[in-house]
């Protein structure tokens, strides 16, 4: 019981930082960026140069230099959903879509040392979807993207996620109790517009 109080306090402080950060985000949306410029603290080894091509693309494996394995089963040694937040004092993103088992058919190794083939590529990927909507400043924001293959929110919104989208309260596990997925993001629902 005793240990819970500081966590709540910390979480409160984090929420303040979060709110401040969000206020800064209210500036007009910048132009879509090439995703290669987005970096984040990497907990498992080589700092990435290549990143996912667009929001919704499968992220490449950033620690290719450390783990040589090509086997899908090995991925789950660390990334199994049950491991959730930490393992060996490292934050590791758990699998957000446990309904699929063939990790390496979508996630390929990011090897920053490789030079481009023949020439550069000028693709500009879709940027992050921006914020969900809120009824008022203290209301929980909605989910601004579709949830297919994103069944485990903590995979992106946990400690390994981009700081802007990190949950201030990772200890609360029932995310969709408060954060409703917007129906308009979902093709399969009437009137759905089908964002990523």
């Amino acid at each position, binding site marked *: 019981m005793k240990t819970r109080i500081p966590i709540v306090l910390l979480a409160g402080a984090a929420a303040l930082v979060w709110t401040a950060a969000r206020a800064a985000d209210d500036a007009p*949306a910048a132009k*879509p960026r090439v995703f*290669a410029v987005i970096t984040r603290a990497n907990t498992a080894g080589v700092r990435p140069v*290549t990143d*996912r*091509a*667009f*929001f*919704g*693309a*499968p992220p*490449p494996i950033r620690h290719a230099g450390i783990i040589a394995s*090509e*086997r*899908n*089963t090995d991925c789950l040694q660390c990334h199994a959903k049950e491991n959730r937040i930490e393992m060996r004092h490292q934050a590791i993103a758990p699998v957000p879509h*446990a*309904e*699929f*088992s*063939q990790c*390496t*058919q*979508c*996630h*390929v*190794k*990011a*090897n*920053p040392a*490789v*030079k*481009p*083939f*023949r*020439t*550069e*590529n*000028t*693709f*500009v*990927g*879709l940027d992050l979807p*921006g914020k969900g909507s809120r009824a008022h400043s203290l209301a929980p924001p909605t989910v601004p993207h579709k949830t*297919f*293959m994103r069944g485990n929110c903590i995979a992106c919104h946990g400690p390994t996620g981009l700081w802007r989208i990190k949950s201030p309260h990772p200890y609360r596990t029932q995310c969709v109790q408060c954060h409703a997925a917007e129906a308009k993001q979902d*093709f*399969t629902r009437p009137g*759905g*517009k*089908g*964002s*990523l």
Partner: protein
Amino acid sequence: MAAATAVLGGATHSHIEAAEGADGLQWRKAPCRFCGTGCGTLVGVKDGRVVAVQGDLENPVNQGLLCVKGYHAGVALYGKDRLTTPLIRKNGKLAPASWDEAIDAIAKEILRSPSTFSFYGSGQWTVTEGFSVMKFMKGGLGNNHVDPNARLCMASAVVGMLTTYGVDEPSGCYDDFDECDTVILWGNNPAEMHPVLWSRIVDRRLRGEKVEIIDLGTRRTRSTEGADHYIEFTPQGDLAVANGICRLLIKWNKHDKGWIERHCNIRQGEDGVGQPMSWDDYVKWLETYTPEYVREVAGVSERKLTLLAERFADPNRKALSLWCMGMNQHTRGTWINNLVYNVHFLSGKFGKPGSTAFSLTGQPSACGTCREVGTLGHALPGGRLVAKPEHRAQCEEFWNVPAGRIAPKPGMHTMAIFDALQKGDLTGVWVQVTNPAQTIPNLNGFTSRLKDRFLVVSDVYPTVTTDLATVVLPSALWVEKNGIYGNSERRTQQWFKMVDPPGDARDDVWQVLAVARRLYELGHPGMKNKDGEFLFTFKDAKGKPIEAWKWDVFKANNIDRLLYEEYRPFTQMKHKDVAPYDELVKARGLRWPVTKNEAGQWRETKRRFVEGDDPFVEAGRGVDFYWGKQGDHKATIWARPYVAPPEVPDEKYPFWLCTGRVLEHWHTGTMTRRVPQLNAAMPEAYVELHPVNAAELGINTGDKVRLKSRRGELLLPAWINGRSMPQKGMVFVPFFDEGRLINLVTLDAYCPLSKEPDYKKCAVSVERA
């Protein structure tokens, strides 16, 4: 509307056709650009550029999932070196030219010698691209030398089906993958080559279903990782294994006598016609294939052969055979296809949910274009033959060209075309959507003189083939044009153009129409139809002619729809009825035959030849092979022997060489290598060795290795204990790397029936360089 939705499998969410998100982002459907699986994608377009690709949840093929190539298909459009202007070789160098110059140069060359010109196309041609080339060449020039790269890919599957049940393309469909108990992979690695279908099978286990996978192969792969049993065989041993299974089934008295009696005849011989054979003679003939013999020639133990045969002997087990290049790129490709059908026929495991023999196709429209349109030297659209006068007459009538326009002599197949180009018997070739200077086997023997011929290449990027070209035409890619693809399970899928092609790049269809028009202007008589009009005469709804050879007019009209509707009657000649264009627009693909039911609704066919599903089956037959070659509504069980391959390892060249693809790259990598994420993951070709062989030769991962065959040699870095492991005495090299052309080394021997070369086995020497 609700009823219609049910008939079309619930795939009528047409509202997404122009669904627009909050930020001006539009999502539209398109089948994936790459393999024959035919996954549905939704392509996100903003400000005239593709910005994202997602899996289409509504598409029954992939149900929302893509593989890494599919997710990055949009990135492949934006390599900085896209071809944006026509190029003509002047003083030995390719120099920018106008479209008029380029089209004029091609037309004049064809006019100079129409009969020695040829067309080499692709299983990545859209349906209408293939169809317009067929009409141009066969219905216009009266020249049958049209063949696609699919000859190198699925010709053996085609001839296998034609000789087995008289009509091309599978009976089963992907639904069978969801229902089978056992999957047998015949030299197949779907974990890398058909990843989404592989997931469709393997991920059933996560839902608590049991599905057993038996990997019958020559090399341990990612698919082996998911298999319950790995059964290794010596290259070419598959012929003996299949016959060995049949022998055991009969020996155990576990063959399905009723099924065989009702649905099969038996024939023997080496060719495509053969002679009748009695059941007793067949049983006697099979006596060669004892477990001892199978062990001797295939290296498969009796225990493992028995394990395989037991899966077919069990009447309650639903068994699915899958194969792709392992069986097709085989000097006895037609035979091994025949033999796998034998196994399924003898066990009665055919035409039932979960039980079928399913040939996976490599390219996105090998089925839709090469096989259904029939872009092959000997074929005419709709599964018909050049050699048959009544087929030619019918085709001439459909095309409204004078009787006798189509030449009676079948055109050359791919290997013959490149041989004739090498020798100078053909003087020119127009290549579209493929890269033969990288993919033809034994390049030294077949493409080294290409630069001396009139070589026209339509492509999207510079390739090793455009390097040799006389004229290069910049093409539109994937969602830069309207298109239709047909996938492995007979599913025809349509998409609309979403973004403009870069610079002055234009559709392949338009390029053909423009050259045809130029030839018409130059007075080539073949470019007129029976009424004296231009061969490609299109009319709008009011009957006004559409001058489609003008780029602005072409762009403003959906020529794809007009050509497809012109093609559609051909498909009704052999019960391959494809859906009307406007139905395809509404659906996430429809599996042919697509016919109208009594209520007037369009319905697709899941399983061909099966009563209650296929509308062409005669009532009461259960399973009806209505195109059976003997006219008896039966399929053929073929007595096809084991014969040794044409080149086997010896003292001088002691290793088998097998070649193939990898997950990250599509064929020669011209598109996927320009995707940074894919290039970084798989930057260069390598040679895989068995660790024991590597130790013997003192080779470590990363060491340079020299491979040498009777035809050529190549230096490659070694990769040992990596993604895959070939059997002892075999090496594997992928063919995507234009900087390391493994086809300098491969063998040009091909199946005498299908004319498909064997890229999977030849003899090489291996040494540390």
